[in-house]
């Protein structure tokens, strides 16, 4: 089992290298630093001198891959690739266009993102599984059919409308919580409760329906018949036998996003003015701050890969076949 996990972790290294090369290509090869400078400075009246100055300010005045003018290791290290891309492996993200340390921003913004994302994830998981179990218990009855119809309806609504509608009804009509904003500590409760509720509600359609399919597939298996033939009640069959087996496919989809919770939700955070990583990304996109976007892409995939490894670990906990062989 340990070898299995070690192998999975080693497997992550080439993937991260791939991601790094991809972002490097995307940001420095598709468009050269000159293009970026021209874009930032305005297309029309731009002089070669201004471009050079901009590149120098932002550290783009180096060759891409090999610096033939430098000596020794500098041939490799004194390049855009080494400075801007390879350095991300040690989580050195450099500076944003307005001159602030991206690494520092990430650390301070993780908290608010987590404050929204973690409760949304946990409450959501419990709510979706419960709803799906309910539909499974009453399968092929009017309750089940109505539940599925509701799910299809809910998943046909764009996530934007959950946020806009929620803000409108709860904050504007009822004045229950502030429309947006954030505060540290206990005071943040009134700010996070609505985003969390909306986050949970917007996922209920697709997730519950998906879990229901998993439960139904599981309930058709032979071991369920064995459990019933033992005289177990339907509830016990569902909770003790079906749920435990269904957790394996559910975990596959769920555990992988846990590290990504650090990234927060782009939409929720920007609508509710939460100073997390999601709104940071959106602001960077709108300001066309490529350094930040690049850092977030790398961070996102690093977290995703961490999620994959977590998934493997969680397998070993629920699936005895993986744990013991």
């Amino acid at each position, binding site marked *: 089992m340990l070898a299995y996990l070690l192998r999975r972790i080693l497997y992550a290294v080439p993937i991260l290298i*791939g*991601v790094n090369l991809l972002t490097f290509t995307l940001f420095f090869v598709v468009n050269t630093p000159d293009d970026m400078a021209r874009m930032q400075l305005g297309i029309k009246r731009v002089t070669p001198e201004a471009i050079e100055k901009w590149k120098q300010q932002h550290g783009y005045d180096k060759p891409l891959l090999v610096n033939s003018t430098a000596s020794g290791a500098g041939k490799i290290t004194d390049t855009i690739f080494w400075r801007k891309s390879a350095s991300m492996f040690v989580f050195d993200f450099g500076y944003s266009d307005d001159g602030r340390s991206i690494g520092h921003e990430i650390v301070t913004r993780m908290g608010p993102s987590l404050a929204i994302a973690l409760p949304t994830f946990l409450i959501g998981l419990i709510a979706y599984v419960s709803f799906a179990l309910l539909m499974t218990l009453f399968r092929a009855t009017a309750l089940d059919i109505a539940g599925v119809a509701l799910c*299809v309806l809910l998943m046909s609504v764009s996530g934007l409308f959950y946020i806009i509608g929620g*803000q409108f009804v709860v904050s504007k009509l009822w004045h229950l919580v502030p429309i947006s904003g954030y505060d540290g500590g206990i005071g943040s409760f009134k700010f996070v409760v609505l985003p969390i509720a909306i986050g949970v509600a917007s996922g209920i359609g697709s997730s519950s329906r998906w879990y229901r399919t998993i439960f139904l597939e599981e309930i058709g298996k032979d071991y369920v018949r064995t459990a019933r033939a033992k005289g177990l009640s339907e509830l016990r069959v569902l909770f003790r036998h079906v749920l435990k087996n269904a957790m394996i496919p559910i975990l596959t989809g769920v555990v992988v996003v846990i590290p990504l919770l650090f990234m927060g939700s782009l939409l929720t955070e920007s609508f509710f003015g939460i100073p997390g990583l999601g709104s940071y990304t959106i602001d960077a996109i709108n300001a066309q701050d490529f350094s930040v*976007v690049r850092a977030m892409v790398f961070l*996102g995939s690093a977290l995703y890969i961490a999620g994959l490894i977590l998934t493997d670990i969680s397998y070993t906990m629920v699936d005895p076949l993986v744990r013991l062989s």
Partner: protein
Amino acid sequence: MSFTPVILWSDALVFLLLAVGVAAAWYIRRHEHLLLPWRRVAQSAAAMVSLLVLSLFLLVGLLDTLHYRAALPEKNGGETVYSPEVLSVLDKLVEPLRTHTEKTYSAPLAVTLYAKESLSDAQGNVLRDYPRLRYGGAHLADESQLASDILKRALLGALGGLLAGLLLALGGKRWLAQRRLPLRPLLIATLAIAALAGATAYLAAAYHVLGTDKVGQDVLYLSLKSIRTGLIIGTVTTLVTLPLALLLGIAAGYFRGWVDDAIQYVYTVLSSIPSVLLIAAAVLMMQVTIETHPQWFDTSASRADLRLVFLCLILGMTSWTGLCRLLRGETLKLRELEYIQAAQSFGVSSLRILTRHIVPNVMHIILISLVMDFSALVLAEAVLSYVGVGVDPSMISFGTMINAARLEMGREPMVWWALAAAFGFMLVLVLAANLFADAVRDAFDPRLNRTEVAA
């Protein structure tokens, strides 16, 4: 000729898709076993009503895809000069909606603007009041007639629509009955849609049924134009996804070994980047390219259009991995089946095994995944446009509509109609697509349609 046809890149792709669709339908009609699951889809009332709704959307989208440039009255040395403005057949059909722009916001079916302005009356006195609209309800001498006029138009329009619907229904009834399609739900849906369309059309001739936006454009017109954008994102993307996923998926599953390792590596790398971030990064880079090469585009329409095509390309490049993984898994299962081994024992070439044995047996997965992805892509467009990495801001889409309307959320009293219109149109489109996708999945998924009982 008073016009010259224009084929934008996205138009060409839509025509290509249409041709593929027609060819596929023709092929399926000639093969009984391929037709069989479609018959099951046709038995489902929900699916057929959804299909009716979807085909209406499709019709609007297609009309909006036939582009042209109208001839200008002045001639340049005997040569016709064409307007730089690219219009579509839809624009021509609903010309009043397009051209009747007001000054700024007005509520649905209103006769005045939404905000008070300083007006001077005949006597030259300045007073603050809601000014009358230029077009909305302009035929009314008195605002007090508004309610009765709306009612009258709605009823007459609905009646006209109903009549047309009835005629259509009587004509189609035999055709439907012959194919044992669910008759009653389809009839009811046809009549309801016809009545609604009739009432809307008659009202729209004199009012802004869904109000106007900040620059006075008719919201109904914007909604109709958004349909094409949504449909293109939902369908053209598959032109990229499908070949990539199919080719790489079955190659990885069938050949295994290093081919499999390489393909798996590529899709793991791609799928390990959160898709919004990858799309955002790619779109940002595309923007840089477009902005630094303004000389590539002759009209602003072609620029916005190319951006749409690139968006589809990027969405396709980032979303093929899921289908690819599914196809690889299925191919791994299929290649162990005995009919593949029988073919191998005849020395049948790998290419032939892939095309004759594997591809036909994974088609159901592809189809299910395509119809399921459609609605997700339509929804994604709105989100991406909101984030600022969607379609060109000058292009009318649900996303840009929402984005523009959202800024007015804080206004008192609230400007709600643009949001509501986008919400309503998207909900109907996505719901119909979801219901249809469900029916397709039920009919095609071999795991779901096991009705026979093993005894």
